[in-house]
């Protein structure tokens, strides 16, 4: 009963305009990797899904896009019910089937190459990873360059996956195949499209 109520509440108050606001933040972040875009809490999903990640899911996912949940989200029936009610998206059985993957605990996540990479002919058929992170400034610094970045950009998300820089280098090498990442922090988000190169890891 309680789960049922939780799954119905907390969607976009104004679905049309909230989805547009969230999408523009994502689009600007994707077009300018490393830039941090503000996104007010438009959705209130059940924990451990965050408001930012919830808004991203609501603005991009629907019945055409299987979602994969990491074990921490998978364990929460309320999260599954909330996503199911508000997006209608089916849950993917394996990471490779997913169009989107919601990852509450990036530090414990499976390897990036386990997700769908797209094909050489259709590199767009890849998984977009939505990583929940506590903030984008207090983790290890990542120096970014590539399309969308004038010279360089810096971002320092916390709790990133193990060997992330190495894994990302491999992701770059698979271009045009590869995964794209949306980093969802409280009140803000940033993106790492597959074209972004992480140059050096500062201390």
């Amino acid at each position, binding site marked *: 009963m309680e789960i049922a109520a939780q799954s119905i509440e907390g969607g976009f108050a104004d*679905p*049309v*305009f909230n*989805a*547009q*606001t969230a*999408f*523009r933040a*994502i*689009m*600007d972040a*994707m*077009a*300018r990797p490393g830039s941090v875009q503000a996104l007010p809490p438009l959705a209130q999903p059940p924990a451990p899904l965050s408001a930012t990640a919830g808004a991203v899911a609501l*603005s*991009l*996912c*629907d019945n*055409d*896009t299987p979602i994969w949940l990491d074990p921490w989200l998978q364990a929460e029936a309320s999260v599954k019910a909330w996503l199911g009610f508000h997006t209608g998206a089916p849950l993917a059985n394996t990471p490779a089937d997913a*169009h989107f993957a919601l990852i509450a605990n990036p530090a414990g996540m499976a390897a990036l190459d386990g997700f769908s990479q797209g*094909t*050489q*002919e*259709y*590199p*767009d058929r*890849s998984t*977009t990873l939505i990583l929940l992170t506590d903030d984008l400034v207090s983790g290890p610094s990542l120096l970014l360059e590539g*399309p*969308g*970045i*004038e010279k360089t950009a810096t971002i320092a998300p916390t709790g990133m996956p193990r060997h992330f820089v190495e894994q990302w280098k491999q992701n770059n090498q698979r*271009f*045009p195949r590869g995964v*794209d990442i949306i980093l969802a922090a409280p009140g803000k988000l940033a993106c790492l*499209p*597959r*074209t972004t190169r992480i140059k050096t890891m500062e201390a």
Partner: protein
Amino acid sequence: MTDIATYNFAYLDEQTKRMIRRAILKGIAIPGYQVPFASREMPMPYGWGTGGVQVTASIIGPDDVLKVIDQGADDTTNAVSIRAFFKKVAKVAVTTETAKATIIQTRHRIPEHPLNAGQVLVFQVPIPEPLRFLEPRETETRKMHALEEYGLMHVKLYEDIARHGRIATTYAYPVKVEGRYVMDPSPTPKFDNPKMHRSPALQLFGAGREKRIYAVPPFTDVVSLDFEDHPFEVQTFDQPCALCAAENVYLDEVILDDHGGHMFVCSDTDHCEKRRADPSSPLSEGRAEGAGGGDLAASPATPSPALRAAPPHDGEGKEAR
């Protein structure tokens, strides 16, 4: 029934917008790659910018300021009707000033005024596949893109040189994006190709009939294909704009009568009007005579907007080639 509220904001339904938004994000992540999308039928015929309209409808919000140009002009039929469409279905502010717009939907020109970060340029694309006239099969062109096999395009440019002594392609001039995908910049004159290179604005391309969306993120390398001994070069004009005396801009030829009278004027009407309104810029009644050459140019070549509606635009009809 005049009740527009029966339509969703910006005409498209939310599921369609989500689908297009996902395609836009993939396009941005893979610069120059054509993302297939489920193009919808729009209340205008294919060829009138249905792809661009769908992209604009999916990104536009109530705070946006929209500018629409058709061959550089704000006041031609296509531009006027698309602007009116969004005014009606999204109630957004519209402008003709390049600097004030947040979204600029364009048919075949990039404004002369430099774009800034935060602006989005949406191109209407008739044929997104640069290899289509060289290889009609989609299965083959897709494989060519996958394998980065672009020799055929160089052969085409070489044949231009063999036949004409120079690369004769003047519009839809193929570019390579970020060193990987060969992309059709839409039938813009090649004059505009250098403006795409490391532009601070996000460039989105929508092809409605062909059901493809592609993108060039800001600060992305866009290099026109060429040869060492035949480097890429843009068109030059040996006279300035007859109305505003602007040089180094793209000019349209305007036929004034049926006795050979003609003049060359800015294709970008906003740029031209701004220059003429600016008292500090040298105005050009006198120059119009020398420039236009014809006897009619001598009769006051008053800048009349009506003039803009008439000219046969360069590039029109060539699309069907």
